[in-house]
């Protein structure tokens, strides 16, 4: 099993997300994460899909994506070929005994405290998917209320050969 990141430029039309997601489920391809957003051109969106599979599956995913008429371009990357980021918001319950410890953790991991009440605080991390996972691990000892993650975003590392 290998992990690949598919950076998929699509027409920004209704139903496209459904078509792409449907393709993955129909052909039994994994979706580890999926993130979608408009690009600088409002007519196109970029989907970043993290998936895993054997050599043949990895190749089929790219080919099947390319067959979709709403797909403009597919780039397939190994993790080391791109810069990846994920954002996570975590709401936790704290008390006076662990508040200090949580704040230290936030400092070490460059986590921002973006909201707070008497018993709850919301943390925000924007980092590599590994570090996001690590933070979640570190927070296992405190009481997590809710988690929201964006899924991985990725772009190929900068190169002098980049177009435009």
């Amino acid at each position: 099993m290998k992990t690949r990141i598919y950076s998929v430029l699509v027409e920004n039309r209704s139903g496209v997300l459904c078509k792409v997601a449907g393709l993955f489920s129909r052909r039994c391809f994994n979706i580890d994460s999926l993130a979608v957003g408009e690009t600088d051109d409002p007519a196109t969106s970029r989907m970043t899909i993290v998936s895993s599979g054997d050599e043949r599956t990895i190749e089929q995913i790219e080919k099947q994506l390319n067959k979709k008429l709403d797909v403009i371009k597919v780039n397939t990357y190994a993790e080391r070929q791109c810069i990846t980021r994920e954002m996570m918001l975590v709401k936790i319950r704290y008390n006076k005994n662990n508040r200090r410890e949580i704040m230290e953790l936030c400092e070490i991991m460059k986590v921002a405290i973006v909201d707070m009440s008497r018993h709850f605080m919301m943390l925000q991390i924007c980092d590599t998917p590994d570090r996001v996972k690590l933070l979640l691990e570190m927070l296992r000892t405190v009481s997590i209320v809710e988690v929201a993650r964006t899924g991985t975003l990725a772009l190929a590392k900068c190169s002098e050969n980049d177009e435009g």
Partner: protein
Amino acid sequence: MIGADAIVKCLEAEGVTTVFGYPGVAICPFYNSILDSDIRTILVRTEQNAAHAASGVSRMTGKPGVCAVTSGPGATNVITGIATAFADSIPLICITGQVNSELLGSDVFQEADITGAVESFVKYSYLVRNAKDIPRIFKEAFHIANTGRKGPVLIDVPIDVQNAPVSGFQYPEEVSLRTYKPTVKGHAVQIKKVIKELEKAERPLICAGGGVLLSGAQEELEVFARQHNIPVVSTMMGKGVLPTEHPLYYGMVGNNGEKYANRAMSECDVLIMVGARVADRAVNQPDLITKDKVLVHIDVDPAEIGKNAGPTIPLVGDAKHIFEDFEKEAFCCDTAEWIKTLDGYRREMAKQRHPDPAYVDPAEFIARLTDRMQEDAVYVADVGQNQIWSCAYAKVRKGRFLTSGGMGTMGYSIPAAMGAKAVMPDRQVVAVCGDGSFQMSMMELATICQHHIPLKIIVLKNNYLGMVRQYQHFTYKDNYSVVDLSGSPDMEKLSAAYGIPFLRLENMEKCDETIGMFLKEDAAMLLECIIDPMDLV
């Protein structure tokens, strides 16, 4: 002009002559506008058959067949026909009426999310939101359906869009689709590689699929095979790429194919798979066609290459272009020894049957029938045991052999034959089905009568769902479950009810005479052949 008029104008611009369908309120503006056109409308008796009929049209004309049905159940009924076409890469344009745009999503009467429902069975689909987009959408749809890997395209048109005014109708000359540019011409380097392998080959073999017929490359394939003396086998969808009795044709491969064809596949040293998906029915163990041999896989759809078997040389492109390019390369390969071996296999490994003389032997019957059919006749096989016998014994010369290969949809033959006959009135069209598949489409006898489509129908009757019975015979030791067709109608009375002349053949005694009567006139006729219920393919 309103949207519905614009749709009809688009169909006229595409040269559409016949539309199969079934109206309902949501598609009524279209069926009203089409009255002012020369396009022939044919009312089928259930929507699924409108798509099968359009498939018959498409396979005979090489252009997308068109069907038009209403919203909700009309649209959902057509899905099996669309899926059948999709599995065999048959180009269709399927127009569905839809409820008023403003009511979309509110679950009103006869609303179904048809573009959502057919997503996995269409090449593309449109929901038309604005009548002014109709010309562009239809131009694109016909282009998408009939280029690259062909397939069905569905266009869902809400009733208010059909009724909306359209000004300055102009059918576009060209399409501009930035995301769709299929590769039809093979890569020169890959072509050279293939030729190099063929030069070294001692036992080359071409396995042709439906893609060869879809690209119209039969002639190019024949010339190439003949010039270089390369034997050819085919998949089920490829039956008819070469005349059945062509000296270089060695039959159909696969589970239900000829043993000698499969033997050729396993013993060849260079295998050229062209326009074939390497699906399970044709190639049971994909690993075997890569082991100890060079596999060249030619397909217009890059995703098919390497999907089921990793080729040594992948070659993306349209079969016709690629054979034309092969033709430009001078090379020779000496295959005399290999051909001699294959001829020996063909003699020794032909299927042996021991038919019960109390019944019609379907194998012998089909062979004699096709001997006497016109040279360019169209043979439409249904699904079941009848399909396997048809594949094995029907002789194709300059005609066509149509069947539902990928999806295996029972009931395909009569409506598909209806479509073929409607657009090719001068050619003999014969549908051959079992008593199970016949009853899935027998409502179309009315369509044949109403629209004067002189179709010839043969029912191989064994009172069983024979293919499943055979499976239960082997797998469940004759524990038959839900395969008995008792209760089927008296075919003679049924034919009489429709005013269709009827013939019955009970054994082989009067076989030739009956076939003669059956084929004599260009008129609708139904021939029932009583076959052995316990027969196996």
